[in-house]
């Protein structure tokens, strides 16, 4: 049975009808990799599902339930990682992660530490984020994502700024999450190295773009 199903998704950006009646289904334990050329609407799609953008129309079903717009229970179950990683530059990585996760669920500081170790951010976890490089920040953002415990991950180019080891880290985080029965939608051109039965590809924009 599909955990997440999207039907009849229409989105306008400016005056352009960007996504026209898009529909797809994602079963539990599966990653839907969203691909398409620049500007076809990958980010738009993820932001709509994250509730950041209001679509013209959308029939969204999650775990068999019709999801109305701005449903808090649905939101509690999803985690969105966009281009801006929501890090306060005066705080350390640990402080940032505790805040970002704490907004959703109670979290102990040991959990935060172990998450930072998991993403390879332990070395610099006591430095303020302003003194971190682009890739180091990205890792801290991944730690928050991992720790929220949400079952649906919406990832927009998660591997940006990461080195080769970091790209492997993203792949393994996703694999682990899928193994736990989670759901991932990732807009990325990177090969996630998933077995074919765990990974579907959604190509958007072939038809959907008018410009």
């Amino acid at each position, binding site marked *: 049975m599909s955990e997440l199903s999207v039907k009849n998704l229409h989105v306008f950006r400016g005056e352009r009808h960007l996504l026209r009646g898009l529909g797809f289904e994602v079963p539990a334990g599966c990653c839907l990799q969203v691909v398409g050329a620049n500007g076809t609407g990958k980010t738009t799609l993820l932001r709509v599902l994250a509730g950041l953008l209001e679509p013209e129309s959308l029939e969204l079903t999650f775990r068999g339930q019709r999801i109305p717009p701005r449903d808090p229970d649905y939101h509690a179950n999803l985690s969105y990682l*966009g281009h801006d990683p929501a890090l306060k530059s005066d705080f350390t990585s640990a402080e940032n992660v505790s805040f970002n996760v704490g907004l959703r669920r109670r979290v102990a500081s040991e959990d935060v530490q172990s998450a930072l170790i998991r993403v390879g951010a332990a070395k610099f976890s006591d430095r303020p984020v302003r003194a971190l490089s682009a890739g180091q920040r990205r890792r801290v953002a991944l730690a928050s994502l991992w720790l929220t415990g949400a079952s649906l991950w919406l990832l927009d180019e998660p591997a940006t700024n990461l080195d080769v080891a970091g790209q492997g880290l993203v792949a393994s985080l996703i694999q682990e999450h899928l193994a736990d029965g989670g759901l991932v939608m990732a807009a990325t051109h990177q090969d996630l190295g998933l077995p074919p039965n765990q990974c579907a590809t959604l190509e958007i924009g072939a038809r959907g773009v008018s410009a």
Partner: protein
Amino acid sequence: MTAIRTSTIAAAWLVLERDLRLAVRRPAQLIQPLVFFAVVTLLFPLGYTPELGKLRAIAPGVLWVAALLASMLALESLFREDAADGTLEQFVVSGQPLVGLMAAKTLAHWLLTGLPLTLMAPLLGIALGVPVVAMPGILVALMLGTITLSLIGAVGAGLTLGVRRGGVLLSLLTLPLAVPVLIFGARATELAILGESQIGPLYLLSALAVLGITLAPLAAAAAVRIGLE
């Protein structure tokens, strides 16, 4: 992983605590509104006259202009930073009611600017020749007024996020919205200096504050949601 969801109250508290902690990280920033208030106050004698007798007459206006300006300067940055680094996005995605989070941010702003300004006012009042007996009345008026200014400011700041989307007109509305606060506040201050009863304007200031507390977080949340799209 056991996941105990954070309650709305706890989330709002977290936001409040975070904003205060961010401010404490830079203690110099805590003092800045106070010095700023003093600097603005200084400008009026320099522009007008050094005579305390004459200054007393414009003291209410001076104090309230300074409060308005401090509120405006500090508020814009409060939201802009959160918008730029993606924090507001995460607020929306978190599933926590945005209204509560916005209320917390507004409260943090008031604690960091409105309250210190209020507490500082007596000192500046003296420099403007305000008699000491008027101070309690001025304190009460500023306390009520700055709360409303923070609330109006939060809506304005939310709206400026989405300025591009045609919020142009709305963002210009917030300043005029502050005008009633300024008028009643200045009037209350004037009455306090004259030693007369302030009941009327204080009553109106409280009414504005109550109105603000009920409506502003809702409006701010709506504004932020629109601004992020």
